[in-house]
């Protein structure tokens, strides 16, 4: 706060010492303090979230041991077995699957909407995707439970006729998450693509580049930072998604044999076990330890995003205007 000594506030504060204390001035001071308080509240809340979760999580790690928590293959709270590997594998595999089936097609759809769609179609397309991004995740989850899971069951029967499955599992979860994160990734990519300066497009066209060449060799490379950020946000959202995944993943607390057999994810297990676990026991604390994995994922995404944005800004400022 002591860096505050700029010219502005000093000039305003100086006459205050001489004049009489009026109601307006007292009110001014109160409101100023309240505004700083609002900012401080945000900061304190963030720190409180990290501290509370960190404390409970560390207790869980101390009780079980970090190697068991990361590499154990059996999660059985009733037998005090807390092997977190199935949870971690489930979370990451389903999120990576979602990026492959949802986010990457969405990226190309954004290129189409920005480069090739007509002027009337692009805003409509954007509007549709904004609505799709706002639809609650439970609604997606319910639709997937009713339609996607049976479809996956049939698909599994076609692939391996001899085994029986319920259709719940990583394949269904990945597809569902892909459909859920596609609108968000698309909107973020679209934002980044629409910031490509038109001068670059014109230059490409003047050199004889076709629209396809301009889109793929000028616009996409120019906005790669924004698109990578969009993909990472999609990944983080898919990894943190809870209720929709819980409805289609099956809930078996073991490593899956393949993509069509039931397994679990971190967030699914948290929401299922937290209702049964007694507070302040190991069974409850390990859930916080597992949530630290999600926390680390989102912190990495934030740092990564910040780094890329800063790098992009520097790159632009070095160029002569």
């Amino acid at each position, binding site marked *: 706060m002591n860096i505050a000594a700029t010219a502005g506030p000093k000039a305003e504060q100086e006459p205050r010492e001489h004049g009489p204390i009026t109601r307006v001035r007292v009110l001014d001071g109160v409101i*100023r303090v309240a505004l700083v308080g609002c900012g401080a509240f945000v900061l304190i809340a963030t720190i409180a*979230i990290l501290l509370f979760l960190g404390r409970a999580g560390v207790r869980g790690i101390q009780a079980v041991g970090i190697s068991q928590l990361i590499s154990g293959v059996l999660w059985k709270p009733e037998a005090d077995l807390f092997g977190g590997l199935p949870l971690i594998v489930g979370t990451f595999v389903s999120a990576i699957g979602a990026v492959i089936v949802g986010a990457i097609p969405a990226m190309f759809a954004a290129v189409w909407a920005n480069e090739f769609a007509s002027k009337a179609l692009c805003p409509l397309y954007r509007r549709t995707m904004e609505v799709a991004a706002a639809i609650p995740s439970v609604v997606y989850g319910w639709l997937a439970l009713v339609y996607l899971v049976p479809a996956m069951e049939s698909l599994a029967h076609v692939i391996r006729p001899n085994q029986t499955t319920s259709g719940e599992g990583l394949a269904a979860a990945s597809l569902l998450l892909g459909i859920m994160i596609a609108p968000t990734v698309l909107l973020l990519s679209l934002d980044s693509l629409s910031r490509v300066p038109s001068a670059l497009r014109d230059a490409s066209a003047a050199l004889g580049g076709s629209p396809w060449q301009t889109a793929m060799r000028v616009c996409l490379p120019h906005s790669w930072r924004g698109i990578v950020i969009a993909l990472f946000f999609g990944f983080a959202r898919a990894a943190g998604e*809870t209720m929709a995944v819980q409805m289609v993943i099956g809930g078996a607390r073991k490593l899956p044999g393949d993509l069509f057999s039931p397994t679990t994810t971190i967030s699914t297990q948290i929401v299922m076990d937290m209702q049964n676990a007694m507070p302040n026991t190991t069974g409850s604390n390990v859930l916080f330890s597992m949530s630290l994995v999600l926390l680390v994922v989102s*912190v990495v995404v934030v740092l990564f*995003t910040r780094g890329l944005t800063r790098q992009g800004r520097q790159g632009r400022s070095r160029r002569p205007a």
Partner: protein
Amino acid sequence: MSVAEPRLERGMRNGASLERTLRLSLATGALALALLYVSGLIYLLVRGGYRLVAFTSIATPLADIQGEPMARAGLAAIVFGSFGWVASSIANFASAKIRGAYLPKRFTRPAVVAIALFGALLLRDHLPRFLIALPSETRAGGGIGPEIFNTLYFAVLSTSLTLPVGVGAALYMARFAHAKKFVGLLRTALDTLASLPSIVYGLFGFLVFVVQMKLGYSLFAGAFVLALLNLPLVVGVAEESLRAVPRELEEASLAVGATDVQTALYVTIPYAWPGILSALVLSIGRVFAESAPLIMTAGTTISRATAYSLDPLRGGETLAVHLWYVNSAGLAPDKADVSAGTAATLVVLILLTNIVAARLARYGGATGTRLQAATK
């Protein structure tokens, strides 16, 4: 005899047909993606929509729960008010097409209010049963009355926390912050908050309110957690619209002797209000949609005695939580229909908030018509 020179055309360029094919497949893929969402949305509205418009000719008796008459009247006012609003919009559109002028507002506004009052007073007990009945875990015919009430009440509770803190923090960052380090920290905190998965908020609320303060599941805990969840969105949009206020307006206010706090309160915030409001409406949409943090802070049950109580320390589920609960733990034989109706209600609420937010954003904000008119 000389061989005719082939004429050069654009289509003859090397790889042009491949490019055409690629472009076509790209367009097909992108439109198929959009079609998926549009058809899903239409399906949701058609599948569950009939439960939302099945008005009854026989009055549904009250269930003798404290606050139920008022809750029913409020719901009727909202339902019939929005019908009136839609009707007046259609009439307005027709009038603009036929007469070339909109209907006068002093005529349409009282008409909408009158329709809402008429519905609230007289048609209160004729609302679709699904919308006013209590939920049922085991028998068919359960409704979502308390869930609708809780969902709307959550929106009020969490906005009453988000609005002052969010706008205060945004105003501080846009106009009053001189400490660069503090603002940098604040931005990092907001970025972190924005990237946390919602289940983490739920865990935090559970730890603080349920475990530490021993409050049990409560609406207040849920609303607090949702307010935290919405802060990054509200602060971001509010700051952007506060920064977009023309400097000339503020300087004019300062020049006639107002202090900078007065300028902020009487000039900057009113000017940026549509943008702030659109952020708030979007955050209400997220309150409607969120389920994981609410399961851990507000619980998954409706108790009959306090179904419509305004006490923020009772627990209760929202529409989104209900949709999950019915499918994961419900035993009712008609749970497919109940889910469809709940999903349709949710989708209608989300569409409404989106339309309102888009209208407000078009009116205010950094690129809004209001700013363009002022700086012309």
